């Protein structure tokens, strides 16, 4: 931690901003995030009443709704040392854009800035804030079964708003039995773009089909990313094209909790049921801090 003495005195208190997509779609990512944060020596809480970071409203020009959601996030999270989200997109929204929403309101702007400064995307928090000793403790997770080669897709907001690029790759280098291979154009948008993907499906479809082609070109058996939005888009397109690759949030692989990939059946498929599958994938282990 920033100042080891402080870390010894009291573990940093992290409020996990689950994100709406992880909450609704991919609880496994949330449990993996908790596991990683606790293993890195943090005390993790999940403040009640979380919904969304407000980005869909903000990016649609509805500042009023975005501001209302921003206030509720500030209320719920400003008591923590850090806000951490398993998403570059939501963390980028809070870190880069929350203060913009209160341009004309000094009181709220100050609170928004205070929270923005303490907001982190998960992998960059683990590497840049928790530091080398903590990152060292995260090494040694086993690669998902059947996956030797994986490739990492750089989500746009994480990469360009928060500078998340090396951190996930560095952490993935510590996963036993996993080769990280780079795909062509890893940093090019997958075509998700929030509401963009449903407003302009044709354009979005072309973009994601190119992404899926690049994943295949890298010879990767799995694609990993730090944002469930991109992953749903990529997994959905892979299923539509009948491609075999698997799709995981990077946190699930780092935590050794990657059982059922996104878009894979919960029942009736050999190999997934045996691992416990379903929403219970990785359950329990996420509650076992390795301090």
């Amino acid at each position, binding site marked *: 931690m920033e100042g080891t003495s402080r870390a010894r005195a009291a573990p940093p208190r992290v409020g996990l901003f689950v994100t709406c997509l992880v*909450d609704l779609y991919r609880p496994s990512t*949330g449990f993996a995030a908790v596991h990683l944060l606790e293993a890195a020596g943090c005390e993790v809480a999940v403040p009640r009443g*979380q*919904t969304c970071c407000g980005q869909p*409203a903000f*990016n649609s020009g509805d500042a009023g709704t975005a501001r209302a959601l921003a206030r509720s996030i500030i209320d719920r999270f400003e008591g923590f040392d850090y806000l951490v989200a398993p998403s570059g997109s939501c963390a980028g929204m809070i870190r880069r854009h929350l203060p913009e929403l209160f341009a004309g309101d000094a009181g709220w702007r100050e609170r928004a800035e205070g929270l923005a400064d303490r907001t982190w995307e998960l992998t960059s928090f683990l590497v840049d804030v928790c530091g080398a000793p903590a990152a060292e403790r995260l090494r040694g997770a086993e690669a998902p079964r059947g996956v030797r080669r994986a490739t990492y897709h750089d989500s746009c907001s994480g990469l*360009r*708003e928060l500078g998340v690029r090396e951190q996930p790759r560095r952490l993935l280098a510590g996963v036993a039995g996993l080769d990280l291979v780079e795909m062509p154009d890893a940093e090019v948008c997958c075509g998700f773009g929030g509401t963009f993907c449903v407003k302009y499906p044709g354009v979005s479809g072309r*973009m994601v089909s190119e992404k899926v082609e690049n994943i295949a070109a890298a010879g990767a058996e799995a694609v990993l990313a730090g944002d469930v939005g991109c992953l749903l888009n990529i997994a959905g397109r892979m299923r539509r094209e009948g491609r075999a690759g698997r799709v995981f949030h990077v946190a699930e692989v780092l935590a050794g909790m990657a059982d059922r990939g996104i878009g894979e059946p919960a029942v009736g498929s050999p190999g997934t049921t045996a691992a416990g599958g379903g929403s219970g994938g990785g*359950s329990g282990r996420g509650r076992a801090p390795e301090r």
Partner: protein
Amino acid sequence: MIPESHRFPDRAGLALADEGLRLALDRARQGFIGNRRKAVDALPEFPALREAARRIKDHTLSNLDLYLERFESQVTASGGQVHWAADAPAARARIIDICREAGARTVTKGKSMVGEEVALNEALEEAGLEVVETDLGEYIIQLADETPSHIVAPAIHKTREEIRDLFAKHHAPLGLGPPGLGNAELVARAREVLRRDFLRADVGITGANFLIAESGSTVIVTNEGNGDLSNTLPRVHIVIAGIEKVLPGYEDLCTVLRLLARSATGQEMSVYTTVSTGPRRSADLDGPEEFHVVLVDNGRSGMLGGEFREMLRCIRCGACLNHCPVYHAVGGHAYGWVYTGPMGSVLTPLIVGLDRAHHLPNACTLNGRCEQVCPMSIPLPSMLRKLRARGFERGLGTRTSRLGLAMWGFLARRPALYRPVAGAAMGVMGWLGRRRGAFRRVPLAGGWTAVRDLPAPEGETFQRAWRRRGSGGR
């Protein structure tokens, strides 16, 4: 050119179905991106230059009146004339007047995007003038009766086969057979035909990449030399330029020039950088007898005082287009007007009106690559967001998307309602999708499932599972 930007979805659909276009865009993108990367990597001071150029432009825009007036007085001092055009009709009328006063019949043109913006060619032709575009790309699209699809490479959407066929058709009346398919053969043919036009033109019209206030000069950068023939051979040279093109002096020009070609094509410098100052002087061997500069506002002074001021820093290098995944997917014609890609998605609504171009700021994933490569550090994503906010205020956009957003916002602001509703929906979807893992079709999610499956959720929400596992206190 009449804006067709409101038809973006239809035009994008046509573009996506065009395999030839896909090949052309793929080839072009690889070249542009790779060449720019190499040029930028080879210049360690690129970031410092970028910062210096931003400051130069910001300073100039803050003192735009001063520099424009200085520019005008220097043009006058060197024997030329400046004309102020508040909008597109004024620019067209002024240029037609100059041509008429010169008794012109034939006009050669160098590439000018502001010329396209004010629809100059159509107006000149209606006034009875013969207009010949002399930039190879512009020449090709003029023959094809199309509009530019890229601000730097107007005919980037055309394959060589299409160009050969166009030349064969249009050059037959000149007694020329179909040219060969090689680049050199196509270029040689265009040169041969255009040479005749250069020699008989009465007026040459060029754009300007920059206007230099300290000397009253206009500057163009080209790779073909066609601009030089357009501004030296005819009796009259007319420059058309937006008011934001002015720079204080040559020092500033040198800084910005070092960014322009590297960002546009990956060249250190364009092949020709040509400075025009006034008409021919008595000792000059060539040059026009008259030198006119038409300065076009057309909405720019409105941008100057507002939240889109930074857009006026744009030097039209095209780097944002070349790195835009949406542009790469659909090409320039989908955008429906002169300016395309990210810069076009900001400029078009500001010039033609948001109600006629509402799709453009929305047809973007806000991935931020454009801002990353913009040599003038224009915050394009945040400008697109501001335009979306204006659209939202005015109630633009489809009813379905507005209704969907409103319903989602209503729920997201009420966690006590959101939790059970979302929880029940995920429970049902998780159960229905448990065997296949993904849905091919989902009611009300046609936009998603048109091109991809919808992965099934795991079933229970994270927050519910977390509380159920007895972590309620945390």
